[in-house]
């Protein structure tokens, strides 16, 4: 049961990982959220969430692409798994369903 539940922040990060496709690593995620949603998020919090998502099997990760600004360190790229896609699809569907039940807005 526990695995089926996603927090708001987890869901956000998972979605953004999906949006970024091949380019999803910590800083890219922070930037997208900042640009698209005008919301400041903490890089460390993003990392912590990413590993939690990985534990839940919703994303996978691999190391690649060292650049000079990082002192030659590689990036950990995350990719959304099929289970992850299914999870956000399910959440979206549930939300649509609930929205339809809301009386005054449509």
């Amino acid at each position, binding site marked *: 049961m526990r695995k089926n539940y996603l927090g708001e922040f987890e869901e956000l990060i998972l979605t953004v990982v999906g949006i970024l496709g091949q380019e999803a*690593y*910590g*800083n890219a995620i*922070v930037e997208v959220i900042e640009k698209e949603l005008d919301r400041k998020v*903490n*890089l*460390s*919090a993003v*990392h*912590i969430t990413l*590993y*939690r998502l990985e*534990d839940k099997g919703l994303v996978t*990760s691999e*190391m690649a692409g*060292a*650049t000079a*600004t*990082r*002192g030659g*360190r*590689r*990036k*950990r790229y995350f990719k959304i798994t099929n289970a992850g896609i299914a999870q956000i699809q399910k959440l979206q569907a549930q939300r649509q369903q609930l929205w339809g039940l809301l009386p005054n807005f449509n």
Partner: protein
Amino acid sequence: MKNKMPAPPRWAIQLLESFCPPELLEGILGDLLEQFDRHAQRVGLASAQRRFIWNVLRLFHPSILFRNHFSLHLMQMAMLKSHLLVALRNIQKRKAHSFINIFGLSFAFAFMFLVVLFLHQELAYDQFHSQKDRIYRLYNTIKKVETGQIVNQSAVTAIPLAMDLQQSVPAIQYASRWASSSGVIQQDQNLAREVISFVDSQFLKIFDFPLVIGDEATALYQPNAIILSQEKAKKFFGDENPLHQALQLTLNDSLLNLVVTGVIDNKKEVSSMVLDFVVPFKLYEIIIPPKMRTSYRFSAVENYILLDTNADSTNLGEVLTRAIQVHSPPDVNRLEIGVQALGDIHLEAEIVGNTQYTHPQKLYILAALALLVLVVAFINFITLSTSQALGRLKEMGMRRTLGAVRRQITRQLIVESFLLVALAASLGLGLSYVIMPGFSTWVDAPLAFRISPVEAWYVLALILAITLLSGFLQSAVLLKYDAIQALKGKILFTGQKSRWREGLIVFQFALSILLILGAVHIRSQLQFIQQKDLGFDQERLIEIPLGDSPDQQTMALKVERFRHLAQKNSQVVAVGASMNNTADPWTELTFEQDDGQKESLFFNQIDPQYLSTMGVELVEGIDFSARSNNASNAIIVNQALVDHFGWEDPFTQQIPGKKFEGSHQIIGVAKDFHFSSLHQKIEPLILVLDPTTIESGITGLSTYTWPPNLYQLLVRIGPGELEGALSHLEATWQELNPDAPFEFNFVDEVLAAKYAEEQRWGSVINAASLFGILIAWLGLFGLMQLSVQKRKREIGIRKVLGASVPGIISLLSSKYGKLLLISILVACPVAWLLLRKWLATFSYQIALNPFYFIGISLLVLLLTIIILSLQSYRAAQRNPIVAIKME
């Protein structure tokens, strides 16, 4: 261009490297550095560094710290089990050390926990009022216009103050006065003297004292309303519903028929204001003379205001001061109004009113004591566990050769110390539960044993801090040595020194000695005070409050009749009467001089028998009782007053004051006697039979008791059983006052109560110091045992080569003896300075005695040497052959 690349602080990176699992580190650190560069360009280096550090701290999170693959998890669980097992075995193996460690720490934990409970409670005072940020208590500052010198500062203020201000300052939403006075409450047969609170109708709109029964909006509007606390409602009405019941209140001999309009939750545990009986402020006018009701010269009540929600509270004091000028224009002195936020008044000890307060010093002292004891216990724990760890070098060597890495060994040591500390903490919690009632009386605060989240966090943080520190220190000590050497047992410790451990021991003993010196001096100062000659005889002297009466004649008659009847018992030696009592500060009058200056003199109205009953002697002149016709203009002054004015011949002098009409005659000078606490000097005092003698000269007063009248009876009991005399006095009282309860106090007990505070603090410090030195000795005992164990062979060889037993004892003990000497040299000067500061708060103080310092130092030294010698004697006595042969 800067020629240096901006970089995040090195320590932050190192910190991250130290706790972050290596397989995550590269990705995380890379991202952080990348973000740091961007931040550095966008918002500047300092801010980028701050954010970097914050990010690193944020990563201190379970999902990072404990993130590992499944297989590794299993491994670690297994290792943890093994660690625990080894730890338990270690505790069993070294029973004595484990006991010392756990025992010391658990006591310190218990003390610390109680102190945290106490501090918590003190800080919670008055915080329950939902509008507390807008509620202020007013205080006045009286300053000399010319010099700006402060004459008087008090939160007991004039009666019209808040109401006048509410009229003229729009920012004040509500205002209320709070006055208290004693009165006799009567309900059927129940009769008791109680403290009555007088408040304005807006009082309940300002403060959050909910009515359990009754309607808040109307409870105080009826002129004959009275609200009871839950406790008092139970006392007078039992389980009956008190609402609309009748209750009688006697104030100043006027009997009032009141109706209960509510029962209030007075939040006694957390409220500075104690409300047992609340009546409309109008009733206060029965007690006070008419001219006080509108005058700014008399201070009698506390004034509270509630500001509007959007009112600006900056410069509030100045605004109020300006507004009050209309009502109290400055003359020689100027009245300034200040404000105290309601949330702060409980810990305000400088400008106080009639509410209960706690001296903040008390909190600091307690916190410091708890911290000291904790430090002493903690040092024990560290020194013992690190030197004990040295005995496990072989074990560690073995572990390392079998493949244990640094981190694993550290982890094992942390698990072990955690076990010890956690055990100590839980024992400590249990212990604190047991000693809480005693502690409660010491600090004079009712404590409730509860573990709220905050307390739980404190305990947890403390456990973790001690665990981690001792674990890391142990591993640092152990891992210094080469594994193979350690395994072969080739490392000898005989000559090795450990500066930091020695430093800790010195520190520990210095603290303990400091505490002992403090305890001894506080005790002797208190004894000195209690044995000091007060100028009157406080033994077998009884004080009986006579109640209130509207006029002088009635009271004088009461006293006369009581004296007549009481003295029928031969044990009643003398009966006198007085206006002021022993417990409260005496009336202080001010007399304005021709030049506008004000003289403050203490005042008491007495009857002719007072001085002889008290046993106060006269320096010169005659007592009131010696005059046959008792001219009403006669007064007696004390020696301090004569000295104050520098009079050569007091009998030709008058009390100076420009408003004086007519003359008074000084007929006697009384020897100085203490009428307030020994914290203060004896101040100038006027004693009169008839207060009208000097009434014309009075231009102001500060007092608990006014108008003058004989409110107290004083009875001197002769030798013999007290019981008989007391029951005779009670019978006499009942005969004269069938409606009033018979209450009495022994004067010596009242005086002792004035020093109860110091007494209690004395015992807190006593306990802390005793405990501190005990733990320190225990620690030393343990250390000594360890070093003797380690040097068994060395001792054996020395003995074989002809060393004597005393020689070996001194060899083993001299090191610790030296450390103790250093501690003494550190502790004495510090103690000297601190004690001199404390003694300065007393007017009559003992001199700091160097012999105490030397004596205590010697005593500690002697006892320590005995402990050390006992240990080394055992070692020196052993058969050397056994020791040498031991492999």
